[in-house]
């Protein structure tokens, strides 16, 4: 076995990881600016032109802050919490095609891989919440685990109907199946799209489902006790998870890297595909931020009712309908 393919893999992995990591600070800045715009405020505008250097200032502040470990906390798990939260989210990006033929690993079970990796994020939150030795943290951790497990089911069921339509669990094949505009899964599976997107908000603990960390009830939720770079890592993890989920929405439903018509062959087409993917990704991320600053928070029982009594049955019905349609379609063909 020669080392060059491994080296190539490493280079691709580093490139995509670096791109995601660079995106995060700007996403944070965008979130603050857009929220200010929505709420008719000014927002950060002091550091650098238009506040563009604000993320840098934030990171410097976080790095130099004192790390505080609460009394009687479980030190090992307390330190592992942020890491366990961040690593799976970062790994998940390995299987997502960010352009035509551009992904770190083309897995035959790509969809499963990404969903698996994102479901692991719950450990960072629940271990961190437990190890902090704080009742607000523990409640945040418990809420988070219950919420993520519940919405994972709805999300998985929504995915199953997508897989049934496309006939593949490989993300690259799903992307290639959506080259022409009308083949985008948002048109073929609109209900699955709505369910998946709703569940994505819950999986990322974003408003309107940010119960694990809602300020008015739980101080800061699972990261109440965290400070300095450990808190920074939770913050980073949240945004990376958000980018991963947005990328999944784009890949699965919004036509991936396809602009809606066939791309030219060769390098030009690849570059265009990356541009198209990024554009769609930013659009979805903007939607995320927009929703966060527009909708009020759900109550916890409302959250569970929505998950178990609306989304899961709807997704199951969707599977049945999809199954019938796919069978008839195959028979007609």
């Amino acid at each position, binding site marked *: *076995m020669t080392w060059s393919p*491994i080296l190539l893999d490493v280079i691709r992995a580093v490139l995509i990881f670096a791109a995601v990591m660079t995106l995060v600070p700007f996403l944070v800045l965008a979130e603050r600016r857009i929220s200010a715009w929505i709420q008719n405020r000014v927002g950060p505008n002091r550091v650098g032109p238009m506040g563009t250097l604000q993320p840098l200032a934030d990171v410097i502040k976080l790095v130099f802050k004192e790390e505080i470990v609460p009394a*009687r906390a*479980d030190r*090992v*798990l307390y330190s*592992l919490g942020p890491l366990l939260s961040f690593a799976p989210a970062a790994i998940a990006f390995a299987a997502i095609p960010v352009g035509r033929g551009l992904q770190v690993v083309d*897995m*035959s*079970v790509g969809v*499963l*891989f990404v*969903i*698996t990796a994102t*479901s*692991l994020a*719950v*450990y960072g939150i*629940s*271990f961190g919440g*437990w*190890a902090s*030795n*704080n*009742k607000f943290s*523990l*409640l945040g*951790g*418990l809420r988070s*685990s*219950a919420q993520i*497990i519940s919405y*994972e089911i709805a999300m998985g069921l929504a995915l199953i109907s997508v897989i049934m339509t496309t006939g593949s*669990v*490989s993300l690259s094949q799903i992307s290639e199946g959506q080259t022409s505009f009308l083949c985008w899964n948002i048109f073929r599976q609109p209900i699955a799209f709505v369910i998946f997107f709703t569940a994505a908000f819950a999986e990322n603990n974003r408003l309107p489902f940010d119960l694990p960390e809602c300020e008015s009830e739980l101080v800061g939720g699972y990261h109440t006790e965290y400070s300095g770079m450990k808190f920074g890592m939770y913050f980073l993890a949240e945004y990376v998870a958000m980018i991963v989920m947005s990328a999944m929405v784009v890949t699965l439903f919004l036509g991936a890297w396809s602009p809606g018509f066939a791309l030219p062959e060769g390098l030009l087409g690849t570059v265009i595909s990356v541009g198209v993917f990024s554009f769609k990704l930013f659009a979805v991320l903007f939607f995320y931020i927009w929703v966060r600053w527009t909708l009020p928070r759900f109550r916890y029982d409302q959250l569970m009712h929505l998950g178990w009594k609306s989304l899961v049955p709807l997704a199951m019905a969707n599977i049945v309908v999809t199954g019938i349609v796919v069978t008839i379609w195959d028979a007609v063909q």
Partner: protein
Amino acid sequence: MSFSDSIFWVFATTAVVPAFLILFTRSIVRMAFLLLGSLAGFAGLYLQLNAAFLGFTQVMVYIGGILILFLFGVMLTQRSDIPVREKVGPALAVPGFFAGLLLMAALLFIALQNPWKTHPPVPVTEPDTPVIGIKLLSTYILPFEAVSILLLAAMVGATYIARVQAPGAPDGQAELSDSNAEGRLE
């Protein structure tokens, strides 16, 4: 040793060492963390055995579901006056140790003595996910249905057993939330 060989050793170690450490850990939440490592190691071994679908299903079901349930159990049932630790007394440890050792010896004996008729592994060319899906719904449809009924029964049963009885019910049970909210509050 080739690259994939060393990867295999990494996974094997990840599967065994945390499982072994669980025996000497006293905090249950840490045990859950070690179990997480062990299960991840198993998933890696499945990947090495060309069972990618199974590997990720393993992570999803065990780590993403079952282990979280256990963590839930720990967090809901531990109180501050009973520490989340337990000691294994010699009265249990010694017989348990010998039972485990004997069983391992027996299993290893079988594994070594039986002349396994193995063949050199056939390289897998196409993903096995479609094959598993088709088998599950054709050859193994009966077990599949049996398992679905079992899951349904387990779900209904679990909900019934774990439900919170209304205040004023015969046993006068406490609310589900009162113990865990105060559990870690000193």
